[in-house]
């Protein structure tokens, strides 16, 4: 289609604010999906997305819409995830669009996971707000519109009141997309430039690149080239998402779709790269993306070391579909060979592990997450440490610094005390407070307050969101931005199991907390590690000095009473269950350690 009749846009908002539900309404209204095929949040097609009820992967869909001016437009929608851990998905989606209606949910809604606002510097221009019109008594459209006006600078009449749930305001949104989002403005006659904003691996079609064509067109068998890797391929198939993959004979400037490259080596086709013609390449590539900067690091190991090679292949393929994941091989004395992986946050970590396990049939073990520390050694070197096991000996450390973040908490004012207490217990420093609403207009404690703090990243990594939610009955929202590194008195707590240090159980903590953390860790591990055939001492140590000790007593009794009336099958089932459990454990020395133990540090507060 000609560019003036194309609109590319994505929907962005906080997590759980109904983006995917709004997408449903648009797909329905434009007849892209028949009533028979329709499901709730139909674009959330991954099993994990459906189970968790959240969007993890951005998903594209082409819709045809005849607007009130009588012209039929091609609308390319990208539904994006709301959780901050997937902000990188959003920023890439924005680069593929010209605009984004935003959803602003009305207050009074307790979202299941009120986490983050959007990344701050997204490139897409012309955002259009679309707050919902919903029914709860405390839904106050006017108040929200006023806030949008003040905070983002939208004018009142730019705001559309709509309900994705009830399907009201959908026509207005579609009209606004046509009228307010500019059409793409690439040059259809210039050499091809198509931005890869996502990709996935298909056993038959090789790497399938999701692209936004900026200039030129891709069509037929004309060979194509990836500008950064230089790889050349003959395209196997072009198509669009509707929302399933639907082949077409080509894509032209302004369009969003896919190209099956047939490339089997996943490293040759990277997200952010530019596709051009092999015979007449564009002089320079599109800007691409800033690489995502991982915040959280953890080791991922196969429970069965024979699966190392499979894990390596799985990671290579998963990265295609999740460009924000970084990894490199590492080895652990306790766990053998695995990978150090960097994630955008804990939810991201959790999703990656679950996807690896499900989509690639692996059984994995994850070590406790860590931030990246900067260590200045006594010999004047500076090293980065993202694995506590690699922290140099204390005698060789001059200074350790840790990353700090500035956090913004928005909460009804009645929870200020609880939030203060929580943040202070995490070594946080109060910066400022601002009332976002005048108190006298509202019931006492209702007015929303913005609280700003500086907090060490490591302190908000583990269960901070959950605690914040818990102490504000789910009302608080949280946003963070990584700031600078600051020196701190940090020490490594080592854990010895049966006298052997287990590198994968080490944690870095503030010196003033070391005793407490050491004690909590061995106590937790005592619960998590089952009794063995012999007594197992557990010790926590800082720099060789034992700070806490527990003992797991030897197993004494594990025997089934009788074989009732010859029912051997039932006995065997119990046995098989025990044997299954054993296989999931990692043998360190002669001690069998279950997977949960390596995440014990996440559960110290339980």
């Amino acid at each position, binding site marked *: 289609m000609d560019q003036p009749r194309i609109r590319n846009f994505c929907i962005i908002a906080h997590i759980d604010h109904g983006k995917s539900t709004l997408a449903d309404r648009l797909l329905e209204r434009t007849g892209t999906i028949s009533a028979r095929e329709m499901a709730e949040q139909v674009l959330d097609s991954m099993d994990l997305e459906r189970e968790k009820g959240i969007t993890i992967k951005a998903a594209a869909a082409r819709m045809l819409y005849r607007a009130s001016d009588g012209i039929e437009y091609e609308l390319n929608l990208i539904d994006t995830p709301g959780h901050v851990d997937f902000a990188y998905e959003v920023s890439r989606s924005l680069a593929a669009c010209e605009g984004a209606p935003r959803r602003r949910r009305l207050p009074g809604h307790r979202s299941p996971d009120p986490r983050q606002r959007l990344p701050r510097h997204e490139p897409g221009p012309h955002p259009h707000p679309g707050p919902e019109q919903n029914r709860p008594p405390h839904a106050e459209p006017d108040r929200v519109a006023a806030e949008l006006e003040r905070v983002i600078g939208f004018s009142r009449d730019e705001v559309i009141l709509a309900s994705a749930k009830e399907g009201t305001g959908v026509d207005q949104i579609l009209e606004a997309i046509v009228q307010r989002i500019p059409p793409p403005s690439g040059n259809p006659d210039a050499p091809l430039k198509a931005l890869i904003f996502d990709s996935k691996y298909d056993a038959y079609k090789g790497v399938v690149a999701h692209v936004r064509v900026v200039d030129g067109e891709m069509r037929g068998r004309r060979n194509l080239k990836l500008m950064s890797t230089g790889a050349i391929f003959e395209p196997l198939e072009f198509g669009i998402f509707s929302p399933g993959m639907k082949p077409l004979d080509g894509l032209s400037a302004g369009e969003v779709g896919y190209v099956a490259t047939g490339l089997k080596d996943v490293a040759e086709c990277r997200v952010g790269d530019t596709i051009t013609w092999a015979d007449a390449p564009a002089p320079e590539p599109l800007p691409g993306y800033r690489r995502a900067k991982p915040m959280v690091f953890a080791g991922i190991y196969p429970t069965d070391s024979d699966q190392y090679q499979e894990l390596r292949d799985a990671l290579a393929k998963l990265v295609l579909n999740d460009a924000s994941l970084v990894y490199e091989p590492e080895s652990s004395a306790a766990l053998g060979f695995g990978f150090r992986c960097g994630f955008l946050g804990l939810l991201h970590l959790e999703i990656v592990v679950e996807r690896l396990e499900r989509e690639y049939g692996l059984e994995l073990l994850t070590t406790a997450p860590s931030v990246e520390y900067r260590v200045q050694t006594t010999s004047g070197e500076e090293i980065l440490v993202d694995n506590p096991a690699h922290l140099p000996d204390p005698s060789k450390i001059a200074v350790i610094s840790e990353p700090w973040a500035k956090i913004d908490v928005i909460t009804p004012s009645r929870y200020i005390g609880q939030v203060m207490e929580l943040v202070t217990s995490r070594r946080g420093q109060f910066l400022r407070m601002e009332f976002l609403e005048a108190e006298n207009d509202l019931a006492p404690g209702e007015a929303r307050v913005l609280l700003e703090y500086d907090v060490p990243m490591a302190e908000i990594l583990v269960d901070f969101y959950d605690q914040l939610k818990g102490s504000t009955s789910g009302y608080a929202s949280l946003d963070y931005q990584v700031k600078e590194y600051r020196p701190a008195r940090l020490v490594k707590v080592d854990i010895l199991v049966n006298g052997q240090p287990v590198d994968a159980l080490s944690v870095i903590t503030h010196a003033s907390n070391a005793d407490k953390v050491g004690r909590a860790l061995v106590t937790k591990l005592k619960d998590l590690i089952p009794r063995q*055939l*012999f007594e197992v001492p557990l010790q926590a140590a800082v720099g060789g000095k034992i700070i806490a000790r527990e003992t797991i*007593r030897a*197993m*004494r*009794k*594990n*025997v*089934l*009473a*009788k*074989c*009732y*009336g*010859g*029912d*051997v*099958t039932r*006995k*065997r089932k*119990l*046995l*098989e269950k*025990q*044997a299954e459990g*054993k*296989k999931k454990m990692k043998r360190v020395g002669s001690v069998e350690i279950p997977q949960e133990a390596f995440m014990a540090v996440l559960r110290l507060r339980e």
Partner: protein
Amino acid sequence: MAEPLAVYVHIPFCTIKCGYCDFNAYAGMDALKDAYARALLREADAARPLLAGRAIASVGFGGGTPGEFPAQHIAALLERLRDLAPFEPGAEVTLEVNPGTSSPPYLRGLRAAGVTRLSIGAQSFRAAELAFLDRIHSPEATAAAVAAARDAGFESVSLDLIYGLPGQPLGAWLESIRAALRLEPDHVSCYALTVEDGTPLAARIARGDVEPPDPDLAADMYEAASALLDAAGFRQYELSNWARPGHESRHNRAYWTDRDYLALGAGAHGYLAGERYENIAHPRAYIAAVEAAPPGQPRPALARVTTPALPAQVADWLALRLRLLEGFAPAEFERRWAVPLEAAAGSVLRELAEAGLLELAPRVRLTARGRLLHGEIAARLLVCLEQTAPRLPRLAARAAPPAPPYAAPK
């Protein structure tokens, strides 16, 4: 003639359902007993082809409470079995009775029917513990039942005891054993109370009304019981069983030594030619299935056949053998499975021996500590066999054939 066969008969009726019990047992269905007895006869008749050319080595009646099943029904079934296959000389016919329902005339009736051995469900000699277990009898009733059994002429009398009840002190348990020994049984079985999922007991524990049993205390109880029974002249021959010389239960041995056993009755389990099978569990459904089955169907109440995977077959063999204190000779393993024991499980066996759980020579058998950890040993053997079995083609050749696809009779 093929090797002799054991027969297991399940009688699923009980006066009340005990709170810890998850056996295939039903209270309040006494009205079905006559129809059930007829169904057992029909099922035995149908099994004629399975019995052809074989002798019966033993018959075991379990339940439920077979000791509440009319003696004439037991007599009729035993007579029918004798018509179908010769009983070996000295064949054991053992039956579980409840002390509360073991009157002298009833026990005389069982003896006359051909029952040779009684296993009396004493469970405990403390009234409070019996009440906790929902048992309907008193300690005195147990003494009376033993006396009645002797009067009726039973030469082998066993007492079943349960230990490890919530809150039960060690001393109370030892008192029950001493009380049992005073009755001079020929055989004693000691079972640890197991909290089975879905039972009222499990629910009481989950609610916090009852303390969960303490496994370490149960281990102390086991060891103390073992010492008392040894001193009284009993010899332990299986993990839960002690006998005076010559009074070991032959019927139960069939389960542990890879012998075939035929299943009769609702929910009964059988083992024939390497195949484990199970009858329809509910008594009413069982009766209906037997009555409706067309002639020529040798297992008219069959619910399911399971042929475990090869590693599990071998692990079962090892785990069951190890329940017997005599263990087994490595040569027996090789005779059965065509590969040396060393190749199949050598590494784990050595590791377990080093940990003090097993003796390896001259026979492979549990040590005193190993007796308390049989479950752990069996699980490790299974894990090991899952790794070794696929690499041992000769072993695979000995495996039972996979179960045929089977449509349960409507």
